[in-house]
């Protein structure tokens, strides 16, 4: 059972446009929702994250919108650049005994065309 559903699977956006990636979750015990960016041949890099007590978080061109009642969250990349072309993963964190585990979405391959 996939606990975090991510869409779309791939996305092509023109330079300067807005990229939007959506995720939905089922488990209300998740308490933290990070987004990771992964370039080919590299490990995932933490991009931005949000807790469910806020509805939006912005860091530079990257914004997370969070809808707790709908159990959905999304990543918006404003003024998308070719250097943003990468695979993006949403994740949800589940607290355990003294630590947390991450469940990842299936990823979105973003291509920003020049």
């Amino acid at each position, binding site marked *: 059972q996939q606990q975090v559903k991510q869409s779309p699977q791939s996305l092509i956006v023109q330079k300067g446009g807005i990229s939007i990636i959506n995720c939905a979750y089922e488990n209300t015990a998740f308490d933290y929702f990070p987004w990771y960016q992964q370039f080919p041949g590299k490990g995932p890099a933490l991009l931005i994250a949000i807790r469910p007590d806020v509805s939006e978080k912005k860091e530079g061109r990257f914004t997370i919108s969070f809808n707790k009642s709908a159990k959905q969250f999304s990543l918006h990349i404003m003024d998308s650049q070719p250097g943003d072309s990468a695979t993006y993963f949403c994740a949800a964190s589940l607290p355990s005994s003294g630590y*947390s585990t991450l469940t990842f979405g299936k990823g979105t391959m973003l291509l920003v065309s020049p």
Partner: protein
Amino acid sequence: SAVISQKPSRDICQRGTSLTIQCQVDSQVTMMFWYRQQPGQSLTLIATANQGSEATYESGFVIDKFPISRPNLTFSTLTVSNMSPEDSSIYLCSVEIRGGYSSNEQFFGPGTRLTVL
């Protein structure tokens, strides 16, 4: 954050052999995690490694196939045993850093790309 290194960065192995992957972090951390990322796929947690105790394995992963060591607070190893072509994946370690925006931020190493022939 943390600086995480993995060795080897890639390897090509023969069926039936074993490979040990090393993960080194530049600061002391309590929890380290091992993930598998099959080609073009998402990340799947294999196990969680706490220093001084047995690793905790996720459903579908067993210690005999993926033994893990965690001898100190900056180092861990994952062994992929009796490999088959289905084990061809990227193996990633991550660490949990406390004290940031979230008490449970995870940072990833660069990964080990394993090909089994």
